[in-house]
């Protein structure tokens, strides 16, 4: 068990190292002088020299990397040239809406998609099954922002039930916060539900073909017991895996959804940073999202041991 966790922990080190190298090289491999790129098109040569100095660009590339990674490990992500703040401060300000959006979406999507996936598998070929599969293809195909605008048009503009855009901090007014979370979470959920319900259906179907399901039937157990006690627990590992991988979709979707609903989160910050070519911010956001993604998947890996006693190597 400890050996298993240790292995997983050690395995993420090279992954994060590759991410760090990529994020570092991003700027250095930009055509032209990185300092000029950072400073923007209207910068004076003094400003460029200043940036060059700050980034240590005159040093050899290895020591630049050492300096950079040293700073990152100490939590010093540099300073945003556009927002005139340290990147750490900037991210701390923007993290709440994204976190709220992700949590709401995850809770909503998983609680919907796993049951419908199981039902679809159980009644394979039925109307319900075909409806679930149809919805899932549709969910993969309609882009988040189109769904978002459709929802805004119907529920906010035509019906007027919910606010169109904006964000209220959770501490300020919980109900207003919740009101403003509904449409974005719904939007972001569509793709996620499509993915998870599909994979749930497929995993359960596969498990239902296993020999031990036949054994369970030969014992005279009812279909419900066979499904819930024998099939679902064995199907849990692939479902969890895909939920973990789906976090990437969630993060990507957050960038778009936050823009549609005007949520001042990290996704919106990413876009603003790219538009203003604010490289320290872009680098940090990518690093942060990747670390979160990797860590969540690590936790999911470890959680497998709860579902499957065989995973203990």
């Amino acid at each position, binding site marked *: 068990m*400890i*050996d298993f966790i*240790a*292995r997983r922990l*050690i395995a993420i080190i090279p992954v994060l190292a590759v991410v760090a190298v990529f994020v570092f090289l991003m700027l250095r491999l930009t055509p032209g002088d990185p300092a000029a790129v950072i400073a923007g098109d209207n910068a004076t040569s003094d400003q460029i020299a200043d940036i060059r100095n700050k980034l240590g660009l005159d040093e050899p590339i290895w020591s630049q990397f050492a300096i950079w990674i040293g700073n990152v490990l100490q939590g010093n992500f540099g300073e945003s040239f556009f927002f005139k703040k340290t990147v750490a401060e900037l991210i701390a300000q923007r993290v709440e809406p994204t976190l709220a959006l992700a949590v709401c979406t995850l809770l909503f999507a998983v609680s919907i998609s796993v049951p419908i996936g199981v039902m679809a598998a159980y009644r394979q070929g039925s109307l319900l099954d075909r409806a679930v599969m149809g919805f899932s293809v549709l969910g993969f195909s309609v882009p988040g922002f189109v769904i978002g605008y459709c929802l805004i048009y119907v529920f906010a503009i035509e019906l007027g039930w919910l606010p169109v855009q904006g964000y209220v901090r959770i501490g300020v007014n919980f109900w207003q916060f919740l009101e403003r979370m509904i449409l974005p979470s719904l939007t972001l959920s569509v793709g996620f539900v499509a993915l998870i319900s599909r994979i749930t259906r497929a995993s359960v179907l596969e498990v239902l073909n*296993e*020999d*031990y399901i*036949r*054994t*369970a*039937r*030969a*014992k*005279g*157990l*009812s279909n419900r*017991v066979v499904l819930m*006690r*024998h099939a679902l*627990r*064995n199907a849990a590992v692939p479902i969890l895996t895909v939920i973990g991988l789906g976090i990437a979709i969630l993060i990507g979707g957050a960038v778009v959804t936050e823009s549609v609903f005007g949520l001042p989160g990290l996704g919106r910050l990413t876009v603003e940073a790219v538009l203003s070519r604010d490289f320290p911010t872009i680098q940090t956001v990518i690093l942060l999202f990747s670390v979160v993604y990797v860590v969540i998947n690590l936790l999911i890996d470890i959680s497998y041991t709860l*579902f*499957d*006693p*065989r995973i203990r*190597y």
Partner: protein
Amino acid sequence: MSTETKRPVLEVRNLSVALPKGGDRVHAVEKVSFTVNPGEIVCLVGESGSGKSVIAFTVMGLLAKALKPTSGEILLEGENILTADESRLRELRCTRMSMIFQEPMTALNPVMTCGEQIDEVLNTHTNLDAATRKAKIIAILDRVKLPEPERIYASFPHQLSGGQRQRIMIAMALVLDPVLLIADEPTTALDVTTQAEILKLVAELQAGQGTGVLFITHDFGVVAEIAHRVAVLRWGELVEMGPTEQILSRPVQAYTKMLISSVPSITPLHRGVRRDGKTVLRTEKLGKIYTGNAFFQKARVVKAAVDVDLDIRRGETLGIVGESGSGKSTVARCIARLIDPSEGKIYLGDTEIATMSARKLRPHRRRVQIVFQDPYRSMNPRITVGDFIIEGPMNFGLGREEAMARARKLMETVRLDPNALDRFPHQFSGGQRQRICIARALAMEPELLIADEAVSALDVSVQKQVLELLDEIRVRLNLAVLFITHDLRVAAQICDYVAVMSKGRVVEYGSAEQVFGSPKAEYTKALFAAAPGRHWDFGKFAA
């Protein structure tokens, strides 16, 4: 015994089961009738595709949806269960009729403890309280002779061996004393010593409780060992049925005669080999070690083969016999250099190939050829049989025309139609494919032919033909053959010399007569004692 108790526990009358459309025949099972009496073991025996498992699953009501019973009756203690609804069938399962399956490795739920899985049966079918249930489970675990029932109760299936898992299945099936036990090839996936123990256990338990057993098998050794009565099936139809002794020694139908004649005898054939041929292959302290790595535990070291010394001369067949995990295939694969040996030497003639680099090895590859176990995966489904056979010769510079001419000749050698060279593998049966693989090996004009369980996946009648072919080729080409098998009967018939392997080591090595006739090593003795039907001499009948 009074006539009351003689009522059969199972009576199958005129049963037919339809195959889905597009199959090679209309019925999986056609108009089959038989009975199983209390305390009786009835064997359904047949080759693959005979419909024997379909009958078993029909009785349990567990048929795949694609298969539909179309006529007949199945009476369990007089009740027609073919027309019973699903909830009635659920009530009967595990209370009146139980089933155990072929693959003990996959038949248990991997995420539940064995105790929980048996407890489910009691919980579903009885109103016993938890303590009583637990006591009953411990008792049945004890009855199926599992050591430390308490520990087994809390174990997960993956922590147990195949034999232990099959015991759990038997415990689960018999915990409520059903009148009928259906066993679908329950020992086929097990090693011979484990098989003997399980057979003994089944016979003991059913005799004690008077359970009727419907035992499905393809192995006449098992039949001779355990059956009271035998039903022979072919293509879904019942060919012949009668008491075991009668069927095995005085079969009436031609098909039964052919089947029983095909069963290899366990007494080795004296073939009078002169040990005067040139040594083709010699291994010296050959070893293969696999190391796993772990961070906080001691690295796991698996010694798949240790200090293996073998030699084979021209015109001779050396058999390596052993149970699964004995290292017999590892040795074969090392000699063919499909894996790299970790230590020792392999002399092919005078050339040492164990440590040779891949590039230097290539010219010598021609000299050793291998035929694998699975005829369905041994051929690339995308290329024709002709291209498959000539691939090797063309790698060694033979022109396409010449190679094809050689392929045509070889097709005749293995008794296949030379005009079939432009067909694809899927158009051939398993036995035919194995012949094609032999032809391909011969196309290289090898000095040593390795057959790695090459007949294990074949039905007994096909197996006999392939064995005869292999032996004929050995004599004609004066070939050295290394024959890997787990099947003692097959080994007795084809080998001049036998090496018995256990846990990576050769425990006994000598001529077939000596090893089979007067085994010295304890392991060999135990192995032979476990061979099912060893006391039965399967007669050879004119078909």
